[in-house]
């Protein structure tokens, strides 16, 4: 319990630090949301100054930061100038899209990676292992960007999958079951790209930690006792190999909000990715900060969850 509290306090300080850093950085940056307006000859300098005063952009940095913190406490995360509304609801709405995508992809990737990695570890030293390693390496060196574009082209050419988006246009005319099928159908491609992107790394880690467990003396003695192969693998070796995998799992939980940014942009998925890019282009600082903070919170929380889980599962850590 004390350990958990300690870690939690640490995480909160980390988030505070990140937000302060972002604010400082944004302050150093040239230009703001109204800079483009200044170029417009029809808009006088006074108007721009007035607008900036109206939205409080002319206040000193500490005051703005305090105001932002207050807004965070209310769940608003500041005011988006481009969308003319608080950032919070905007984030929540888009987060659902992103989470739907990444949670599915992460589940699928892990469900595939664990058996594949274990199988791979048992094949160590054979040509199958080498071949599989090569395939994974090849998959790892194909950028997600390229994969997403190719999939999109194939989707358009074959007509089997929709080219981007999350839902069909005539959604209201569909029954709930059809609606679900529609979303799944739209999800297939982005999820496939994400899974292919995650899989090689996960399989490698599973394989590496399984190999390590198999090399341990207890594995040899268990085998000498005549424990059946599958039971040995899943009951004895997997738990022993679990430690690094839990950390990795925490990390993949943490990246739930950030892993799919690029894929979302390319595939037109209504998640945080396109929102973030638009916010950057429009210099909507509150929105940029909101997205960054949200994904940072996820990352920190994921790591925290992994640490706590490790603490529960592995008595060796508790001794320290």
């Amino acid at each position, binding site marked *: 319990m004390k350990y958990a509290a300690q870690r939690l306090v640490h995480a909160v300080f*980390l988030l505070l*630090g990140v937000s302060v850093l972002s604010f400082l950085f944004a302050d150093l940056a040239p230009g703001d949301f109204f800079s483009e307006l200044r170029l417009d000859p029809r808009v006088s300098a006074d108007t721009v100054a007035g607008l900036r005063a109206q939205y409080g952009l002319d206040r000193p940095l500490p005051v703005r930061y305090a105001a932002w913190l207050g807004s965070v406490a209310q769940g608003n995360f500041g005011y988006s100038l481009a969308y003319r509304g608080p950032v919070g609801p905007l984030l929540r709405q888009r987060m659902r899209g992103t989470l739907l995508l990444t949670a599915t992809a992460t589940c699928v990737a892990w469900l595939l990676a664990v058996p594949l990695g274990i199988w791979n570890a048992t094949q160590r030293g054979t040509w199958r292992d080498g071949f599989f390693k090569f395939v994974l390496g090849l998959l*790892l060196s194909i950028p997600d*960007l390229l994969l997403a574009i190719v999939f999109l*082209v194939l989707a*358009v050419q074959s007509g089997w999958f929709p080219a981007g988006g999350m839902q069909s246009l005539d959604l209201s005319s569909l029954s709930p079951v059809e609606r679900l099928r529609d979303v799944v159908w739209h999800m297939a491609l982005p999820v496939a790209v994400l899974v292919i992107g995650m899989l090689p790394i996960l399989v490698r880690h599973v394989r590496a930690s399984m190999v390590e467990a198999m090399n341990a003396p207890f594995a040899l003695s268990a085998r000498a006792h005549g424990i059946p192969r599958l039971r040995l693998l899943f009951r004895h070796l997997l738990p022993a190999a679990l430690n690094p995998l839990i950390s990795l799992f925490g990390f993949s939980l943490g990246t739930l909000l950030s892993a799919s940014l690029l894929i979302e*942009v390319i595939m037109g998925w209504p998640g945080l990715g396109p929102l973030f890019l638009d916010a950057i282009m429009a210099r909507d600082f509150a929105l940029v900060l909101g997205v960054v903070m949200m994904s940072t919170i996820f990352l920190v929380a994921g790591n925290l969850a992994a640490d706590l889980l490790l603490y529960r599962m592995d008595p060796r850590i508790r001794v320290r």
Partner: protein
Amino acid sequence: MRRRHKLRSILIFLGVLHAAVLLAAFLAPYHFAEQHRDFPFAPPTRLHWIDPAGRLHLRPFVYRIRQDLTTASYKEDPSQFYPLEFFQQGRLFGVPQPGVIFLLGSDGYGRDVFSRVLYGGQVSLFTGLAAAFLSLSLGLVFGLTAGYYSGWPDQILMRSGELFLALPWLYLLLAVRAFLPLHIDTVQAFLLLAGIIGTVGWVRPARLIRGVVLSARERGFVLAARGFGASDGYLIRRHILPLTFSVAVTQATLLIPQYILAEVTLSFLGLGVGEPVPSWGNMLADARQYHTLVSHAWMLAPGLATVPILLGYLLAADTLLEETVN
């Protein structure tokens, strides 16, 4: 010994790829901005050895291509052909004037995709290399300081490092880019990209190097040298720095491909190097309209060009890691 051979062949492979990109001005038949307005989206030009009369030519030639304006498709015109010329005008190969040679097709402005992939690699690869160099230098300096002096410099550096690690990488990159002016000229963009990507990534190498330094500091020969009155500067330079090299090299093979991808991503999103200078990222952005891609698949070439490079670095990193493990 086998590993050494493997590593050598990987390095040769990577070296050839980098040399090809570096020598773009010689290997590419056209300048990256040269437009052939009559040939938008021309498919890859076919090289021929046998002419319509059935005679074999030792010097390959290309036929004149004509665009059918109603269907926008291209046809070869066997009545006119142009043999390849070598070493003309400081280029490895080319064809005499009204003929054109697009080994990987042409883009919407009739620019040669093959030439642009080679030139584009210069931006993408060297942003990656420069950024990795910057990252590693920062990592070395900070890692050495933190590991060697420990105490408060260590605390400050590692705590602020955690801030960087807490942010998702791509978001951090984009956010940093967000706070800089959107439209800048090419050289600035190049330096800026390398600067941003490199600065953002200092933490991981710094942590690893700190670890190495922490253990190196207590090694017998370091303690002995200190006992003989060696200064801090001498100890770091002569005894500790060399110990960090293997970590630094392995890190470099991991960071460079990551940073090449970062450049490709940023330019793809329109936040990096802009037209008319090609980079693999902004070339792929052209290919993003899928109606272009469906009929002009060769526009994917810059994306495919990244694959062997990334694979090469990946294999190098793997081999190096194996070497340190065993």
